[in-house]
């Protein structure tokens, strides 16, 4: 994939980029969640 033949390497790239997208998605989906716990519980 993209010139890399060893699956163990390109899988690392797929996972790294996938996890980054998961971070972005998580931030967007939870953008306004967690506002009410500012005093601890």
């Amino acid at each position: 994939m993209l010139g890399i033949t060893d699956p163990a390497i390109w899988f690392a790239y797929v996972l790294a980029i996938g996890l980054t997208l998961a971070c972005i998605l998580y931030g967007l989906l939870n953008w306004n969640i967690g506002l009410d716990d500012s005093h601890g519980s």
Partner: protein
Amino acid sequence: MIVMAVDTLTFALVTVVYLLMVICLGYLGYRKTRGHDDYMVAGRKIHPVVLALSYGATFISTSAIIGFGGAAAQLGMGLMWLTVLCIGVGVLIAFVIFGKRTRRIGQRVSAVTFPDLIGKCYGSPFLQTFTGILIVVGMPLYTAAILIGGAQFITSTLQIPYDTALLAFAAVVALYVVIGGLIAVMYTDALQGAIMLVGMTALLVLTYTLLGGVINAHAALDALSGQVPSALAAAGMTGWASMPELGSPIWYTLITTLVLGVGIGVLAQPQLAVRFMTVKDSRALNRAVLVGGPFILMMTGVAFTVGPLTNVYFYQTEGVIALQAATNGNIDTIIPNYINTAMPDLFVIVFMLALLAAAMSTLSSLFHTMGTSLGYDIWRHTRREKPSMRTIQLATIAMIVVSVLLAYVMPGSIIARATAMFMGLGAAAFLPAYVQALFSERPSLRAAKYSMVTGAVVWFVWTAFIHVKESAVLGLAELLFGAESLLPMPWPVIDPLVIALPLSAAALGVGWLVDRNLAPAPGSTDAS
């Protein structure tokens, strides 16, 4: 040694402008600091973007870019597994699972440092003091390594004597850390993180452009596998775009030290964990994840991609691989040599500024963590009084002086190991007890004590007597037993963390079982 290829005066002017901005942000931190909470946890009201950039810039030091980038140039793209762990563990798990609980519990018990959090969760002054002592003893090694790297870089770029560079570097960072506390540290971290982001993005784009595009660059790297030096091939290396042979010495080094050592160690770093307590609610942590993930990808992912690709550049232009293009065989010079020869002058300045920013952001956080550990956590239980802000500031200055002195005497050969070493010690000593403190309804103090002491002792023994990369340099094993390592292969290449962390976790389990048998009645948390 990093040698600059651009005009020293131009870089000096850019550096002066950058330092003025840093000092302004430091002053802003000073103006906003009115008490302990401001000085130690930034008033618990830091903006999510500042948190994300500060966390990332603290995590990623110059050695992560230069040292690990050089390691990737030598060992190949297998280091991308470290990027996977840095994002998956260092951002997603750290912020979403550890961060939210750390913030909530930290606010509930009014914790202002990592040792304070541990001590209050277990109701144990001993654990607070012990955690503080481990930080004060272990962290100066890591700090001195960052200082040396930064001073070497300033010496070569600005053409000033090494001693002057070391003292000036420490003094500038000390100034804003001591007067402005964590607010100053995090504001300057955010600026430095932004500069690092610009530098690494440009590095990636320019490298692929230079090598004829993504696919051409990767294919050329794949085709270089026949050029792997025989010594590395014998140790298991198969190429720069492929993993080393499973179970070979290089595979163990790559996976246990570089990938697991740093990738898991990140969870229990006091200087990172304290940042979760600087925001006012979980919403800020959710928002910080959005920035933190891409930031870490652009730092580590770019270093571990461009590092191996320097082999293609040096092979096409000079007919040698990156290791042969390194000055005196030192892999730390591969990335700077590549930047100097392959990149346009303007980018050399941007990248050098990014390196200075990376060193300063990590250094400031380490200074702050060591200072608060000594001046607050250790002081309050040894002197039995709550320290004043002046005491904490003086303790910070004391730890800075210790780090600078250590930077003068530390052997050069241990520097590259220092990041992974402190990450390993942090994980082995703190992680199981930290996890129990966050996730257990009734955390067992006995279990935490067993775990912390076991983790720290096993980590030290393995580092000093078994793991040959450290034991050979420290010399204790040679002095006492006449051998660099006391065990046969593959143990000398297995990182201390891989041994110490499971034993630390097992000790936690044993302590918990003992506690349960001795005091089965509910409500008993202190077994000391």
